[in-house]
């Protein structure tokens, strides 16, 4: 029960052969030496990745699995609780809410974002002046500090004194509780994601567009196709692999949304009604705010299952025979 010593520093075996070159060696050792001489350099060359992966990838995964069977507040001794954490997870309304919130925010952000990005890329691909300026301009949001974005959006979408509500009032519309209502919160978080990632995706689409030969467009134009027809019948079909790629990267990003709602509300509650509480934010809340590391680990495995499900869907879609 007291096996809390899980040091990852197992001593590599046989670091000191200690025998000189001239001595006669047993055949087994000589084979080992030969093996070493031949492959050691390669193993050393790939070692850094595996060492780093073992420390920062493998060990945390194994430890998280171990932790999910414990009750631990971070300092008091761990207490083995069997499957209790998972049992609780399966009946935890807050966890399901956080999964649902994540998916809703993901759809609310990804669909308009990719649509905007495609249109932007299509427009950037036309012969217009100052192309690089636009390209840089659209990419800048992506390299802006996300914390700064969240603070600015918090001001823009403020209920009483936010700029968006001031605009709404000036055109005679009702103000919206952006940061206090269920959908307001989700839309605000989605807006931040859209603002940040549209340009990034547009640049990727642009690269895809430039790979489409001009002859196709020229031929279609000769046949009398208008811009919309060009876009619908040439651009989109030929861009399909690139679109799939952006859908996958957006899925990966979307399932990990964390900073936006965290900074927007200044804590890990996800705002009123927990409408902005995403899966990862919930994990953080349980593990690092409430110091429930055992349960936090179980939530982590819950997230793993959700991500796995989406990976399978993605994989299926990708492997669909192209028609």
């Amino acid at each position, binding site marked *: 029960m007291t096996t809390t010593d899980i040091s990852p520093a197992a001593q590599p075996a046989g670091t000191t052969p200690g025998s000189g070159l001239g001595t006669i060696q047993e055949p087994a050792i000589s084979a080992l030496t030969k093996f070493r001489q031949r492959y050691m350099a390669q193993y050393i*060359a*790939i*070692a*850094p*990745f595996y*060492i*780093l992966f073992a420390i920062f990838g493998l060990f945390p995964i194994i430890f998280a699995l171990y932790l999910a069977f414990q*009750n631990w*507040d*971070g*300092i*008091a001794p761990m207490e083995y609780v069997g499957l*209790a954490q998972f049992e*609780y997870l399966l009946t935890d309304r807050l966890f399901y809410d956080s999964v649902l919130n994540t998916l809703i925010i993901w759809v609310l952000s990804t669909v308009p974002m990719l649509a905007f990005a495609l249109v932007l890329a299509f427009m950037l691909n036309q012969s217009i002046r100052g192309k690089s300026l636009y390209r840089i301009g659209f990419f800048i949001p992506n390299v802006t500090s996300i914390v700064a974005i969240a*603070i600015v959006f*918090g*001001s823009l979408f*403020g*209920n*009483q*004194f*936010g700029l968006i509500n001031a605009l709404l009032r000036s055109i005679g519309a009702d103000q919206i*509780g952006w*940061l*206090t*209502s*269920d959908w307001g919160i989700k839309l605000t978080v989605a807006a931040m994601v859209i603002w940040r990632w549209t340009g990034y995706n547009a640049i990727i689409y642009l690269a895809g567009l430039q790979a489409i030969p001009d002859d196709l467009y020229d031929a279609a134009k000769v046949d009398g196709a208008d811009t919309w027809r060009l876009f619908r019948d040439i651009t989109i079909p030929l861009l399909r692999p690139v679109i799939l790629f952006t859908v996958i990267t957006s899925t990966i990003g979307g399932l990990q949304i964390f900073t936006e709602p965290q900074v927007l*509300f*200044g804590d890990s*509650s996800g705002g*009123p*009604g*927990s409408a902005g509480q995403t899966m990862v934010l919930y994990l953080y809340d349980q593990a*690092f*705010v*409430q*110091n*429930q590391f055992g*349960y936090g680990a179980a939530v982590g495995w819950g997230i793993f299952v959700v991500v796995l499900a989406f990976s399978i869907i993605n994989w299926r879609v990708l492997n669909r025979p192209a028609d």
Partner: protein
Amino acid sequence: MNTRWRVRLLPLAATPLLLTGCTVPAQFRSRSDPDAVTLWYWNRSIEPELFRQYERDHPGVRIDDQIIGGDYSAKLRTVLAGQTAIPDIVAFNDNIATYFRAEEQFADLYEYGLGEVENQYLGWKWGAGVTPSGKLMGFPMDTGPIALFYRADLFEQAGLPSDPDEVSARMSTWEDFYAAGQQLQSAIPGTFLLDSANEVYISSLRQSADYYVTRDDLYIGDGESVRRSWNLGVQAAQLGVVARTNTFTSDWSAAATTGALATFVNAVWMKAVLADSAADTAGRWRVAQAPGGAGNRGGSFLGVTQASQKKELAADIIRSIQSPAGQVVGYTSLDLYPAAPAALTDPALQQPEKFYGGQNTNEVFAIAAENVPDFYYSGADDVLHPIFTDEMTNVAILGKDPEQAWADAQSQVRREVRHKMPWVRFEEA
């Protein structure tokens, strides 16, 4: 090109690993001074000059004071769990009780003679640093007595008293305060007393001796004290005297600047926050006793770890830098409100403040500090409190039925406690 570059970069990537692999000492001291007393605190929680003063007074002693940024409690838990690089002295926040269940990790400061100065500090503050088993784990640093901040000009305009003493007398209960708020709202439409119903709930709870769990781990969050505070919050929402913003947001700053927020009840450390976020309103604010009585929000402690090899010296450093005189220095340089009554009466604290129209606000806070009830902020509070504030938000902002919200909070408490903190007991019904 890719693979080639990766191969070339590999040795580079390995370099830091090899370097650290060769030089990591047993203890990750940030400065290589094994004789120094290490101390962990967060920014602006202790005036660093006090450490230098101690070093000057005690030649040969060096204090390695490290400001720990980011998530302080996660980092402290990490070194305690790993039993390595543990500092000698650590600061605790007002949730010190979350460490009580690991009390064997910290020294009992009574064993190092700090009980001698117990009578120099406010009783409730001292008691908050004592574990249920009677060990002195946290030595008093600063406190957060609460008071009513109000706009004297708006009060005058609404025909309310504007003198702090008169305001204190007129709005001594929350009900009186709400009545004044309604008078204010009918005179100046669009004004509010507080930024949210939760502010009422939190302040009122902090004015009572009973929070959520007693010192012997009995759940009392369904008891009279929490219920009364809950009702006051609901009442504020229903009367419409509270706004729907959140403290520390730009909406809050805007409300405080424009006068939409005519009053608020909060701790003494809001003085600086207010002066920063609503600089344009300088001279118009005053401070009076909080409706509902004295209470405390926030404040911190210093403790010594069991792993420390210099407990005697560490305890002496704490005693010295947090002496009443040391706390006066903390107040004058960082606005840290003292926990020692002798410091509260120090002339350095009795200053007219321009932002508050020349009022000496310390008169108000000192009275509040002396009258805070002897509360117990349990190790479960960090889990239980958000359950109630979340439900209060549901009532005040999303329009949830208050009774339903209360029932939901109670059932959620039972669920989470059973699962996460089985040591909390429920009274058998």
